[in-house]
Every structure is written in structure tokens, then in C-alpha cells.
């Protein structure tokens, strides 16, 4: 009973239920957008956007307090996504452009924070999230934003996949590649805002990138990758919260829940990696 209670009973407490709901919503985005990120190899872009969103958060809070956090971040995310698509594929390698722009954006955020007096939470809280103070309004807003992004991704799913696997063929079939790239970048950036809001700037990448990578380990088709990613993200979020709660209640250690959840994702990924490699290895030796 004790184990069951630890696994399920803890979520009777609203301060654990609400983060679970937000992470569940983010899991849907991690499945749909995460798969697109994976097939387009946009992992670095995603990381870039988490940093680019940061000044939006900081300026939003500096101007309008906590209420302006999400609008500020959504505007910054859209601008950053547009800039990334605009600057990509010209001269200097894309990697370098991304790296410099994202860090410059991040610097602006740090400078705003260092100058601001409206800052109550401190830099660290924004970097590593405040998962346990998620409110009902945050659950609602997260659901709406992610539902919008996932709907758009679902409507044009075939075009996104076609563009990812063969740009020229997609262009020949009349797929508007540039527009798709822009839509995807903005979609990713909005999902990043929601993830950053709950789990923090530095850990959002784990939640968005790792599930699809696990999906790719065990499945080949994009639909199945998305399904596996969704399942993995749900289980990992849930386990991560259980562990964070268990550690803080029973072991009396004050672990940051965002970091615990992110590490659970990483640990799950490594387990899946070792398991699939082992299975592949034994199969190969049986055939030989």
C-alpha cells in the first residue's frame, strides 16, 4: 500500500496535481512538436529559443509583474523564431549564428534582471523553474496555447513531414517550405514558453527533445515515434514528480522539482538507450 500511496496518493495534494497536469499538457507538445523537432534536427534551435525567450520573460516581469510574464515571453518567442528563420541558411554556418544570437538574447535577459527591482524570484528561479507554485490559471493558459500549436501541427502534419524528409520534392509538390519553417519555429517557440514557465529556462530542452529521441530509439515511423514520446513524457513527468515529492517528504532533502523531473527524463533516456542497444546486440549475435 505504501508504494501505491507514494505513486498515486501524493497527487491528491493540489500543489502536486497542478504541475502534473501542466507536464501532461507539455507531454502532448513533446510528442507532436518533439517528433517534428527530431526529424528536422532542430534540437539546437529549440535550445536557442529557450534562451531567446528569457529576455521576454525578464522584460515582461520588469514592466507588468507576474501577469505580464507570458505575454512578454510569447512576443519575444515569436520575434526570435522569425529572426532565426530569416537569418538561417546565409553565409556563416547556421550553428554559429544560432549560438551567438541566443546567447546575446540571454545576456539581455541577465542585464534586465541585474538592473530590475521588480525582481522577486531571482535569476535562479527563472532558470530552474518553480514547478510547485503552478496555479490553475497556468494550467488553463498552458492548455490553450499548446492546444492551438498542436492543432496547427496536426492540420499540416503531412506537409511538415514531407518538408523534413525531402525539401526538393516537397517544394516541387507546391509545399510552401519557407512558410512552414516559420510556422514550425513559432510553434516550437510557443511550446518552449509554456515549458519554460513551469520547468525553467535551462531544463525545458530536456522535456521537449528527449521523449522523441526515446521514440526514435524504438520506432521508425513518425506516428509511432510521437505515440512512444507521449507515453514516455507522461510516465517520466509523473515519476519525476513522485520522486521529488518522496525525497522532500521522506528523506527531508530540498530537491528542486524541475531538476528532478529533468533528470528523470535523462535517466529514462539512458535506460532506453542501453536496453535497445543490448537487444540489438543480442539479435545480431543470434543471427550470426
Amino acid at each position, binding site marked *: 500500500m505504501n508504494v501505491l500511496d507514494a505513486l498515486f496518493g501524493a497527487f491528491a495534494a493540489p500543489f502536486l496535481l497542478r504541475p502534473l497536469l501542466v507536464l501532461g499538457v507539455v507531454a502532448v507538445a513533446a510528442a507532436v512538436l518533439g517528433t517534428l523537432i*527530431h526529424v528536422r*534536427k532542430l*534540437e*539546437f534551435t*529549440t*535550445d536557442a529559443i529557450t*534562451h531567446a525567450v528569457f529576455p521576454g520573460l525578464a522584460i515582461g516581469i520588469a514592466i507588468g509583474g507576474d501577469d505580464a510574464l507570458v505575454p512578454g515571453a510569447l512576443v519575444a518567442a515569436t520575434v526570435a523564431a522569425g529572426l532565426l528563420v530569416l537569418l538561417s541558411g*546565409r*553565409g*556563416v*554556418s547556421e*550553428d*554559429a*549564428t*544560432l*549560438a*551567438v*544570437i541566443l*546567447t*546575446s538574447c*540571454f*545576456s*539581455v535577459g*541577465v*542585464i534586465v*534582471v*541585474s*538592473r530590475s527591482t521588480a525582481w522577486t524570484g531571482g*535569476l*535562479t528561479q527563472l*532558470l*530552474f523553474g518553480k514547478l510547485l507554485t503552478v496555479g490553475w490559471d497556468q494550467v488553463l493558459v498552458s492548455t490553450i496555447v499548446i492546444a492551438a500549436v498542436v492543432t496547427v501541427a496536426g492540420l499540416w502534419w503531412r506537409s511538415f513531414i514531407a518538408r523534413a524528409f525531402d525539401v526538393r520534392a516537397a517544394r516541387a509538390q507546391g509545399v510552401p517550405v519557407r512558410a512552414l519553417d516559420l510556422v514550425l519555429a513559432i510553434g516550437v517557440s510557443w511550446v518552449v514558453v509554456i515549458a519554460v514557465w513551469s520547468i525553467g529556462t*535551462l*531544463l525545458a*530542452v*530536456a522535456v521537449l*527533445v*528527449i521523449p522523441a*529521441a526515446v521514440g*526514435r*530509439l524504438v520506432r521508425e515511423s513518425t506516428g509511432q515515434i510521437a505515440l512512444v514520446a507521449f507515453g514516455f513524457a507522461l510516465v517520466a513527468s509523473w515519476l519525476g514528480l513522485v520522486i521529488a515529492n518522496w525525497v522532500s517528504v521522506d528523506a527531508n*532533502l*530540498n*530537491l*528542486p522539482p*524541475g*531538476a*528532478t523531473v*529533468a*533528470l528523470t*527524463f*535523462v535517466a529514462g*533516456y539512458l535506460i532506453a*538507450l542501453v536496453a535497445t*542497444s543490448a537487444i540489438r546486440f543480442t539479435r545480431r549475435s543470434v543471427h550470426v
Partner: protein
Amino acid sequence: MFELDYFGRALVEAALAGALAGLVGVVIVLRERAFTAMSLTHATFPGAVAAAIIGAPVVLGAAVAGALLLGVSSLIARVRGQGGSVASAVMLSAGFALGALLAALTHVPIDVEAFLTGNVLASDAAQLWLTVAALAVTILVLLVAGPRLLASTFDTLSASRQGISAWRVEAVSLALIGLAVVVIGPVIGAILAIALLVGPAAAAKSLTRDVRTMALVAPAIGAACGVAGLVASRTFDTAAGATISLVAGLVFLAARGADGLRSTVARRRAERVLAP
């Protein structure tokens, strides 16, 4: 040599760190390893925290953690369907999460923000000498191995036919990147270091196509960014590490803008000549 007040020391350190970053940045930009360098900066974070907890030199902890995570990620990169960018993403999120956990677990007061955004104003003589040594080692390695590194970067296949092992070149360039990351990390921070590493070199690449010129211009730009950023941070009373990396970003954008303008002008001129 370093009988200076704290701001003078910080100025020297900013210039040295900028020069080191600019030089190594040439390797990063030419080999397109920006994301690797970025995840490496993140991977050093838990090592730095762990070292601070047990009282070991922070640089040492950062180096050990960076090497460990680099090993794990190079294994991930070999798995079918995963590849380098997944490996880097896993590595950097693992790095930050581990660092945050370690910092939360201990009762030793640790200034996590100083690791993330740097503290150039706290540079001591040891940090200065370390940067000088790293700069000297990097220059030496590039003088000795530079031609082979270039050959393998631009044409891996024919270089390996001439007996230049791609694997060894990769190891040497990763070691150089790792050294620079570990040394300038405490100065401008684990998150912000990447702008100084990539910005000056990418700017230099926009300005010149010649690699040798690039290797001279990039450190100069880097040092200038370091000094200008530090002075600006004092004038405007802003965070030093963030201001330095912002200056590096602005210089990069300006160089890109100039390059874009130049190629547009050249194209217009060509069109005019060709037009009847």
C-alpha cells in the same frame, strides 16, 4: 606583473579570455561545432558545483565533468537514429539538472548564479596565469597541428588518405574547445561563454575568407569585446559577463550586416555590368 587593482586585473583577464575564446572560436566555426561547444559549457556546470562543495579547484571539477559527459555523448552520437544533436541536447540538460541538484543537496553556500553568468571582477592572479597558460598551449597546438587540422576539416577523406586520422583531429579540437570552455567559464559564465567563443570568430569569418588572417583577427576582436564589454558594464552598471557576451553578439551582427551589404553591392554591380 599582475600588481593591479581588481578592475585592472579584470581588464587584463577579459582581454586574455577574449583572445583565447576568439582563437579557439576559429576551430569551432570552421568545424561547425557550435552546439558541441555550447553543450560542453553546460556540461562543466555540475563539475564546478561539485568541486566547490568538496573544496577542490573549480576548474578541475569542470574539466572532469566536461570530459565525462563528452564521453557519454560521443557514445550516444554513434547510435543509429540519434546523432550528435540529440547527444548534445541530452548532455546539456543533464548538466544543468545535475548541477542544480548538487547545489540544492549541499549545505555549503554556493553562488550558482556566479557559475552561470560569470564573475570576471573576482579574477585573481591564479586565474590570470591559467588563462595565459591556456592561451600559450592553444597557440602552440595550432602552430604545430594547424595545417593537419585544416586539411582534415575541409576534406576529411583525402586527409585521411594522407595519414591524417579524422578521429585524432576531432580529439585535438575537442580538447582545445574543452580547455577554452573550462578556463573562461568562471570569467563570463557557463551560459554566456558561447557568445565570446563563437561571436568573434564568426565575425572574422564574415570579414575575411583567409584562414590565417581569420586566426589573427578573431583573437583581436575577442580581446576587444572583452575589454569593451567590461568598460561598458562599469559605465552602465550592468552585469559584467552578460555585457561582454552582448558586445560579442553585436560585433557579430555588425560583421554579418557589413558582409551582407558588401555582397549585395557586388551583386548589383555585376548585374549592371551584365545588363545591356
